[in-house]
């Protein structure tokens, strides 16, 4: 059964890569990318880094220039949302009323900001940092900000804080739990990053709950904590994570469980519909617990490559090693593998000097490796884990153990 038309809902990293990979493999049918944003597909990681810092412009954000899409016959339908999937008729209904028929549909709908139900959340000056429009708005605000409060100490909140400090704005980060990036890194790494940010003047309130956002004349002016403190803020950044865009799938009767449920081939319960990237909940051989849903460029792009190959008649279960990175001021964090559920952490390198790796284990299983300002370890970690190899906690702790040799070994 030949697929003659592939429709992709979402034009982020996953959606774009799917279209590009199909053409790279010589797919000759119709490829349509539906995007609810007005721009051509663009890269998201630089938004909270070089783009917000003003180091690069929009031209450097675009995945490809406009001509690429025409040349490769990739139809980009911008500024339009998919509102319904008609599975019986194999068509997608769009917000402008049009219908698009598909042979295969790929959901690459991504995720959206989690918005806390706080009084005052609607005030002017409350910003987010996920898409280009939000980043533009934030950039304008930041230029004039006298004091910023960041709600949530994850990657995005911390990356923003580093840039805000570099521009001289006072930054106070309010975090519900007791450490930064608690969901993704070990406590040693949290401590390292908190210290690095404090050194640049960032203030933290951990274990802190917010009562409300206060303002005057419709503009935010302060954040009220439940302990009674008042933090001045003419800019508030909400960075408490995202929720997957799964409503389209759910309304079409497809199973969802913290994302659109897919199997190891990244297929939903409907053999004509796949889901990839941030919106997909999938079984990963690299995870202690399954299914998982990951928010990462690598994940979205490798999912896309896997689905494109399946559509071209070369089905393979998804097996790519997850990896992540963050740049916060002069600090570089690179993670290989999925460390959730670790019981033991072994540090290798010079923790005090801020150049080390944290090897995270559950029992004797090496789950993943966090490398802090240690790109060589990260390169080896990716090779090691992708090949399904491991090093023992004793080897990891032993500086004389040759990590390179272990990573580069064949077979």
């Amino acid at each position: 059964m030949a697929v003659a038309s592939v429709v992709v809902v979402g034009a982020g990293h996953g959606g774009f890569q799917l279209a590009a990979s199909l053409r790279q493999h010589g797919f000759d049918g119709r490829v349509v990318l539906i995007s609810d944003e007005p721009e051509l597909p663009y890269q998201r990681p630089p938004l909270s880094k070089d783009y917000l810092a003003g180091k690069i412009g929009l031209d450097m954000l675009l995945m490809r220039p406009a001509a690429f899409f025409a040349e490769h016959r990739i139809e980009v339908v911008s500024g339009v949302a998919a509102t319904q999937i008609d599975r019986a008729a194999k068509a997608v209904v769009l917000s402008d009323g049009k219908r698009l028929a598909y042979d295969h549909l790929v959901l690459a709908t991504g995720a959206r900001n989690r918005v806390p139900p706080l009084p005052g959340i609607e005030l002017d000056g409350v910003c987010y940092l996920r898409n280009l429009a939000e980043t533009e708005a934030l950039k304008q605000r930041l230029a004039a900000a006298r004091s910023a409060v960041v709600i949530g100490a994850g990657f995005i909140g911390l990356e923003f804080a580093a840039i805000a400090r570099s521009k001289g704005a006072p930054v106070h980060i309010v975090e519900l739990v007791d450490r930064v990036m608690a969901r993704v890194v070990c406590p040693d790494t949290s401590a390292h990053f908190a210290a690095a940010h404090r050194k640049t003047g960032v203030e933290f309130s951990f274990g802190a709950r917010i009562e409300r956002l206060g303002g005057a004349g419709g503009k935010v002016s302060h954040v009220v904590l439940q302990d009674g403190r008042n933090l001045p803020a003419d800019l508030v950044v909400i960075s408490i994570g995202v929720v997957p865009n799964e409503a389209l799938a759910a309304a079409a009767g497809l199973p969802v469980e913290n994302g659109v449920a897919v199997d190891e081939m990244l297929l939903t319960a409907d053999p004509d519909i796949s889901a990839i990237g941030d919106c997909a909940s999938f079984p990963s051989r690299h995870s202690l617990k399954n299914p998982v849903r990951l928010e990462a460029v690598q994940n979205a792009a490798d999912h896309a490559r896997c689905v494109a190959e399946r559509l071209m008649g070369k089905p393979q279960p998804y097996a790519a090693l997850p990896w992540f990175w963050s740049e916060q001021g002069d600090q570089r964090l690179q993670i290989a593998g999925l460390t959730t559920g670790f019981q033991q952490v072994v540090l290798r390198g010079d923790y005090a000097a801020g150049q080390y790796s944290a090897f995270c284990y559950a029992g004797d299983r090496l789950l993943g490796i966090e490398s802090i300002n240690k790109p060589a370890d990260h390169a080896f970690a990716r090779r090691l884990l992708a090949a399904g190899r491991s090093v023992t906690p004793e080897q990891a702790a032993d500086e004389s153990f040759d990590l390179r040799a272990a990573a580069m070994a064949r077979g």
Partner: protein
Amino acid sequence: MPSVTYVSHDGKSTTLDVPLGTSVMQAAVLNGLDGIVAECGGSCMCATCHVYVREDQLSKLPEMELGEDAMLDGTASPRRPNSRLSCQLVMTPPMDGLVVEMPETQT
């Protein structure tokens, strides 16, 4: 304007104008060239913009920093003595006429 010639793994050559200050990776991506992925967007984080530089031109390139050297150990295609990450090759006048070969795979 300086130019760079990109040779794909199957031998197809493409010559692009690359403005001073633009990286060899950026020019490839902006021109929609297959063969350079640049998953991290040029932060020296992913090792998917790997190229092989013509041996006699290696001395014209910016010095390799530790981060690039390290990440080159994580490339999908084998690292060779003339391997570089193209996101780190920012165009300077002596680099005019550079020839880079793209590896079989970046991922």
